[in-house]
């Protein structure tokens, strides 16, 4: 026996759920719709594979894809050892009272706005890189990747910690009972057990690195060419969207940013599903 109020409330909840999930689909659909004229002009793969040269009528986003790959992978390479070390510290290497403090600190670090990383990067790191390598303006893949690495490390550390926390207590007690030191327990027991969860953390951090706009926009130099070394400037997909937004609404330049949007969307979606798939496998194992 359901009263009208019961049904109304249930319908409202259902409606909200449908509305919020339709946003997910709506964003993709709308971007495909806006970018559609571009497809008629040259085909999807031509856009992905071509160079960016507006004066010659080439509106390919390949340089931006390469730039995104360079900045985010290098950023990940910076962040991985940092996060690994930090998660080891908080998981057992550091003395006990320090661990909690450290973890609290790392949690707080996830709240630092990206625009502040970018701002400090421009005025502190860019001159250092410029002076140190004496090559170019200092705004390059390396600068952006260093700052990006510091930016994603706290989140990655917390994901690694999650993976460690999911290890059943009995395994750890067994290692303790056998007289393992903290480092031994970490290397021989915790690390092999947490491998999969840590992979998840790396994938999620990659998604974050690819999706970040401000650091790449402010620090990577934004030249629309495939970078041939880490000292060269590059433009990421996200920065491309931010830079071209002011162009004429009917122009192919403007259309190309929707191709960037679709690529970013599909890539992060693929990462999300990869994480879900891996997490599912892990649940089945334990």
């Amino acid at each position, binding site marked *: 026996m359901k009263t009208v109020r019961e049904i109304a409330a249930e319908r409202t909840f259902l409606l909200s759920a449908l509305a919020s999930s339709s946003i997910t689909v709506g964003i993709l659909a709308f971007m495909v719709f806006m970018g559609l004229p571009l497809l008629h002009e040259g085909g999807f793969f031509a856009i992905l594979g071509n160079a960016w040269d507006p004066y010659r009528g080439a509106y390919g986003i390949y340089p931006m894809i390469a730039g995104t790959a360079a900045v985010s992978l290098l950023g990940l390479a910076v962040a991985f050892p940092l996060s690994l070390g930090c998660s080891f510290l908080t998981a057992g290497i*550091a003395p006990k009272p320090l661990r909690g403090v450290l973890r609290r600190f790392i949690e707080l670090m996830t709240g630092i706005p990206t625009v502040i990383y970018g701002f400090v990067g421009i005025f502190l790191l860019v001159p250092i890189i410029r002076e140190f390598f004496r090559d170019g303006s200092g705004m390059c893949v390396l600068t952006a990747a260093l700052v990006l690495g510091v930016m994603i490390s706290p989140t990655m550390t917390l994901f690694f910690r999650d993976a460690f926390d999911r290890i059943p207590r009995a395994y750890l007690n067994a290692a303790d009972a056998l007289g393992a030191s903290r480092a031994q327990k970490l290397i021989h027991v915790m690390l092999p057990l947490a491998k999969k969860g840590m992979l998840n953390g790396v994938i999620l951090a990659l998604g974050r690195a690819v999706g970040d706009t401000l650091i790449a926009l402010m620090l990577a130099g934004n030249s629309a060419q495939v970078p041939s070394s880490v000292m060269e400037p590059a433009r990421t997909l996200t920065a491309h969207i931010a830079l071209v937004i002011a162009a004429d609404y009917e122009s192919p330049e403007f259309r190309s940013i929707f191709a960037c949007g679709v690529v970013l969307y599909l890539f992060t979606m693929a990462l999300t599903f990869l994480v879900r798939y891996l997490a599912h496998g892990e649940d089945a194992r334990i």
Partner: protein
Amino acid sequence: MRRRILEKATVWFSWAAGLTLLASVAVLLCYLLAKGHEALSTGLIFGGTPPLRALLLQERVFDGLFPALAGTLLLIILSIAWAIPVGISTGIYLAEYADGRVKKALDAFFDVLAGIPSIVVGLFGFASAVFLHRHFSDRIGPCLLISSISLSFLVLPYLIRTTQAALEGIPGETRLTALALGATRVQNIFLVLIPRSLPGIMSGIVLAIGRCAEDTAVIMLTGAVASAGLPSSLLSQYEAVPFYIYYISSQYADPAELTSGYGASILLLMLCAVLFSAAYGIRKGLTHCTLYRA
């Protein structure tokens, strides 16, 4: 012996990595404070205008952060106002009603939504503004309304996930007591389950506020500009603190402007620090899984 070396190396490596990360963040903070501490005064916010007159909107502030702060505040209030009802009801639906395939599908949708880069959400907002401008009314363009709706999309997954997690964390006995006493399902939700999970929901709201305050990518595409004064309506452009910081970094004209950029960074950093510690404080077991988006 080789094992010994490996263990020693692990310990050294961990300390080196931890200290490197802490040192880089410490350098960042110290650098900001060193450069920006002299800017921290009421002049930073109100410029040459008397604070009281500015607050009462009697006089326009030209050389201070007051319009940017007001813009950020309005943006937060509006985005949260759109996101809270939808986000919390969706969280309730996920935790209390959905099951089986429906729940799995919705879960997947919200995971994807949480992973979408904020610039893509901003692009969506911008494109909608262009679309509406062309097909409905000339008065609609990138504006406060569009920005706040886009931002609410961005923070929706936080609210959904924290609400869902808080509700699902309630023990089964508590869940059944009111039902056994004859309460209906909806009464049980509103009178027992929601009050019990309020800390979790609150922490989600505070986190969402933090995201709204710091996000730059969405607002730079959907209507934040360098000088607009106070927004006069929902359809006008506005200033915001993170956008101001971004703008100053590339367009500053003199050292004084740059110093105020440092000052603005310190203000934003303090705001986010307060919000994040509040969120973690409200609910200790808060998961950061909802937080990974750039």
